[in-house]
């Protein structure tokens, strides 16, 4: 009935010594869905993402991403996903074109594919004039849009975006989200984290992690109704600090 699953996690768990960072989380994301992965600092989001991207082995439970088991087929997972974070995505001391070529090479694209896709990407982003500029010299907003396009260069089935719009101006932030919508409309599955609660409203569904578990999951509208919250911000406060008023 529904679209095939791009991400499926069942009782996914990760312990560090006596501390359980991710505690039996179960959720799935359909193909082409924009899934907001929210939670307070320290709730376990980063650990969960590291497991889903094949960088960290689960302690127990299982997860498949783009059809591959994250524990047994970690390298296959890495080939079929894209990743971008606010902290690090592009090499600042390489030019725009060099960054694209580098990532294309890492993902095993042919020279011809890299050339074609570079041209199309720069045209779409309106960045042709900056192709040979160092990445550090282009404005942050452009850099983030470029980083997102580079994360999609090898046409991954799932892309993970970790706080992609942090510190970006309000217009560019919205242009960035339109790139997300476009990618999703073309069938790419997007898992995104953000501290901007208005952006949570842009997602098809969201989950809110609380102390290693999923505290709530659903469409933004359904969750607001269920928790009688005015906004996702209110909902977040209710869930993330149950003791706070």
């Amino acid at each position, binding site marked *: 009935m529904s679209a095939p699953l791009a991400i499926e996690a069942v009782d996914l768990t990760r312990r560090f010594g006596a501390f359980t960072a991710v505690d039996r989380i179960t959720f799935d994301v359909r193909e082409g869905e924009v899934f907001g992965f929210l939670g*307070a*600092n320290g709730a376990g989001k980063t650990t969960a993402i590291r497991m889903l991207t094949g960088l960290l082995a689960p302690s127990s439970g299982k997860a498949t991403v783009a059809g591959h088991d994250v524990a047994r087929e970690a390298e296959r997972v890495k080939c079929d996903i894209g990743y971008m974070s606010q902290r690090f995505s592009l090499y600042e001391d390489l030019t725009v074109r060099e960054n694209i070529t580098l990532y294309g090479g890492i993902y095993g694209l042919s020279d011809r594919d890299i050339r074609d896709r570079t041209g199309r990407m720069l045209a779409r982003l309106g960045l042709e004039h900056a192709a040979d500029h160092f990445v550090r010299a282009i404005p942050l907003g452009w850099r983030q849009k470029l980083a997102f396009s580079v994360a999609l260069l090898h046409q991954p089935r799932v892309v993970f975006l970790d706080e992609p719009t942090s510190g970006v101006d309000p217009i*560019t932030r919205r242009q960035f989200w339109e790139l997300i919508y476009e990618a999703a409309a073309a069938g790419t599955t997007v898992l995104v984290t953000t*501290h901007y609660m*208005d952006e949570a409203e842009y997602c098809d569904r969201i989950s809110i992690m609380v102390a290693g578990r999923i505290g709530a999951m659903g469409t933004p509208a359904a969750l607001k109704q269920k928790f009688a919250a005015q906004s996702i911000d209110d909902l977040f*406060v209710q869930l*993330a600090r149950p003791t706070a008023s």
Partner: protein
Amino acid sequence: MTPSPSGAVVVDRLEKRFGQTVALNSVSFSITPSELFGFVGPDGGGKTTLFRILATLLIPDKGSASVLGRDVVKDLWNLRTRIGYMPGRFSLYPDLSVYENLRFFASVFGTTIEKERPNIAPIYSQLEPFKDRRAAALSGGMKQKLALCCALVHRPEILLLDEPTTGVDAVSRREFWDLLAELKKTGMTIVVSTPYMDEADRCDRVALIQNGRLLAVDTPRQIAESFGRPLLAVRASRRYPALLALREAPHVHAVYPFGETIHYVDARTGETAPAIAAELRAFLQSRGFADAEVEITPPTVEDSFIARMGTAEGTRAA
């Protein structure tokens, strides 16, 4: 122009360049004592450069700046003990514990935690359960509270907080602003910067800053109201297609996602909001968005920022 002695901060035509980059472009404003004043704008807008000049850590190229009636270049040694500065990047010692960091900052200013306890009590009480934890092992929100505590430990007369809530989750952000509201009650002047537009409402006055220029300086309410034209919020189950369709409305000026709605601004100035709303409803119906709802909504600081940014750059909000 001589700085007015009554201003907690007086800045006149301040300029700073780094090579070709103009970080601050003729910036002027003043902040009154006991004000909670916010600089709101994206990264690269000039906030950090401005804070570093006010904190006497960077010399401006042109113009003047005074803090507490003293010039930030000539009177830096007087000012340094009177300012509490929290830099944007986490700047405490990661390998020292919470208590050791605080003790270090107290000793640098010739005081002790014990002596200052009454001043820092509201914040320190939240940190005390973790006092033996290494700073590196604190959560983002707790790190920022520790940094605030360290900036307060020498009883400064003014606080300069550069992006204290960046990268911090929404709940910790709220808690941090609640702490600032408490501090404000003691009469402290607080200057704070943030990339989060929704935090503007927690300030007495804000300056919108972008590309080294101030786009506006006013109360959050005045800035929101300065939007000055009808603003409509559209709800539709098929959001992205609805957004694209709205861009083709006959009199469209700007269309952008805004929380759970899409904001629509009309290009005409003579029409009333209800008339535009009715037209838009009909337009969306004709485009097959049967469930679309259109309502009139009050502009926010963010709407005003988007409108002013568009004007400043000669482009339209895409």
